[in-house]
């Protein structure tokens, strides 16, 4: 026991209660750092995470603590899995690195009303059709070709634009964060170049850890929430993980570069250039927020279009089946939200970089049909391991500004993974376990090997035990399309 304590404190964290570890505020830190993790997860943490949590704690206007979720790992400036809230009235900042390059990257899940077993031998055919129909990898969208003025409508309208153009159904919008359209988007603050990167990419998955998966519900943890979310054991689900593609990446790139000089002009000392930021209440900060919100709309439209393509595939094979959107979450954002701090409500700008908003029961932004059980929190695993549906808790509000984890989190670098797995044998091995993998790149698949990620079951368990969200359903992949 004493040895374990010594090891964990060597990582710079002190366990203040089960699954909650703290870094004392020292030096330039304005608030403490806090990570939600089991001892096992803390011991496996990259030293860089501790450094990055501490650096974020030094930024002006930060409120409460600089937080890291159970799946945290080394990111850019902010750790992936980082959450930090800033008060605009107390010099708070907005940081492009605190949102990340893939603005509003997120997860959406559909229920199908089918049992996975009903797919039978058609699983392979459906998986192949999804692979052919949904653009991924280097492939351009194809399904939606836009001009710059049309793209401006996407950036202002998000999933609402997509529904107006016939992609999906109006009732989907109730089950997308922000009702499918992020307010305050300013397409005119998105550069021409960012738009040029996107003209062919609306409705495409991308690559890397992005995917489209057919899943089976393996276990229910919370029957009332599962009832509200309409998931039951054996059900077939469809899940999409992707973001804002080239447009989001270009916004991130441009503002990261721009904010480096802006920060010094406002007298903000940067321990790391990746933390480049501007005061929320500054022309540059407002400009980034407007562009970033347009990026959120781009991602919401993108997932809405992909969802409609998935529905087309199902309609070809199962004409009577109706895909119902369970929910759509974004896990790379900065949003203005009211939170209770020290007994009073304050408007805070909450950065979640690789972290999911997780409003608890009763929160007005949770759709009515889910309001008694809390917001669905969708956690992506790997192509060979479980994913989770969780629900927001009231406790997460005081602990983490209503936030939870976003995925398994990598534990091994891509270069290392490539030395341990080869694409084609890995895909065969997964096929042997009953998981069909359709990848646009065998080399890329090797880097996404399940063994390169943390144990998602541990991450979800800790998210529950730390009070960030509670487990509703554990789901397993049966077919995975990788970009």
């Amino acid at each position, binding site marked *: 026991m004493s040895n374990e304590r010594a090891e964990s404190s060597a990582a710079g964290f002190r366990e203040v209660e089960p699954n909650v570890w703290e870094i004392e505020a020292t030096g330039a830190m304005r608030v403490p750092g806090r990570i939600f993790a089991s001892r096992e997860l803390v011991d496996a943490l990259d030293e860089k995470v501790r450094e990055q949590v501490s650096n974020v704690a030094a930024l002006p206007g930060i409120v409460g603590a600089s937080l890291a979720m159970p799946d945290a790992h080394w990111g*850019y400036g902010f750790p992936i899995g980082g959450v930090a809230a800033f008060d605009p009235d107390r010099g708070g900042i907005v940081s492009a690195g605190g949102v990340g390059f893939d603005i509003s990257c997120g997860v959406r899940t559909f229920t199908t009303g089918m049992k996975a077993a009903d797919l039978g031998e058609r699983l392979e055919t459906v998986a192949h059709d999804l692979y052919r129909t949904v653009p991924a990898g280097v492939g351009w969208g194809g399904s939606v070709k836009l001009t710059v003025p049309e793209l401006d409508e996407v950036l202002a309208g998000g999933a609402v634009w997509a529904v107006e153009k016939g992609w999906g159904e109006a009732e989907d919008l109730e089950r997308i964060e922000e009702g499918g359209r992020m307010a305050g988007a300013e397409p005119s603050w998105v550069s021409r170049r960012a738009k040029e990167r996107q003209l062919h990419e609306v409705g495409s998955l*991308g690559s*890397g850890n992005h995917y489209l998966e057919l899943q089976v519900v393996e276990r229910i943890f919370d029957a009332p929430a599962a009832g509200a979310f309409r998931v039951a054991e054996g059900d077939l689900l469809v899940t999409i993980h992707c973001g804002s593609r080239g447009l989001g990446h270009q916004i991130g790139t441009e503002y990261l570069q721009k904010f480096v000089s802006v920060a010094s002009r406002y007298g903000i000392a940067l321990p790391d250039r*990746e933390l480049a930021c501007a005061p929320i209440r500054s022309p540059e900060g407002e400009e980034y927020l407007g562009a970033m919100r347009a990026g959120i709309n781009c991602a919401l439209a993108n997932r809405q279009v992909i969802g409609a393509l998935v529905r087309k595939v199902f309609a070809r094979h199962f004409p009577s089946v109706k895909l119902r959107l369970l929910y759509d979450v974004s896990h790379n954002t900065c949003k203005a939200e009211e939170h209770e701090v020290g007994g009073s409500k304050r408007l805070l700008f909450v950065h979640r970089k690789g972290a999911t908003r997780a409003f608890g029961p009763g929160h007005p932004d949770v759709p009515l049909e889910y309001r008694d059980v809390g917001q669905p929190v969708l956690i992506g695993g790997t192509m060979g391991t479980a994913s989770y549906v969780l629900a927001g808790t009231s406790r997460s509000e005081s602990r983490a500004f209503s936030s939870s984890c976003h995925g398994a989190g990598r534990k091994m670098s891509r270069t290392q993974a490539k030395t341990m797995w080869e694409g084609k044998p890995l895909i065969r091995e997964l096929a042997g376990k009953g998981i069909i993998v359709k990848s646009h*790149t065998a*080399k890329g698949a090797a880097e996404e090997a399940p063994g390169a990620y943390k144990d998602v079951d541990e991450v979800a368990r800790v998210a529950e035990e730390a009070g960030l969200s509670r487990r509703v359903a554990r789901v397993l992949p049966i077919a995975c399309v990788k970009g």
Partner: protein
Amino acid sequence: MAWEHFEHAADVGVRGRGDTLAHAFEEAARALFSLLSDLTAIRPSVEERVACEAENLDELLVAFLNELLFLFDARREVFGRFDVRIEKTSGRFRLEATAQGEPFDPSRHEFTVLPKGATFTALEVGKRDGEWIAQCVVDV
């Protein structure tokens, strides 16, 4: 002259090495495009010009790689050969380059992962053991 990838928890480090600063930049660009294709499979059928400037050399590297990523996303072209010139004028560094390559062809170019942007992480441009290196982590 050579390029290589180096480790990062979730993404990929690209590193170019060369006898001159310009060569190190060229090799770093090749390390970047090796994520998108085997470089020997890229034919030099189109040529693009790239220009950027920055206050220091490491920010110049990030700007250069991001210019190339923009060309890949907006025009779907991959490049295997680069000719870089870097000069310092009135306190700023300016880069001009040509990039030779061709439109991405999925039947001949096997990508590993699509890069999103060059970052300031593990960013370094300088002389190490007598040769120039130019490196940073690329978000993928």
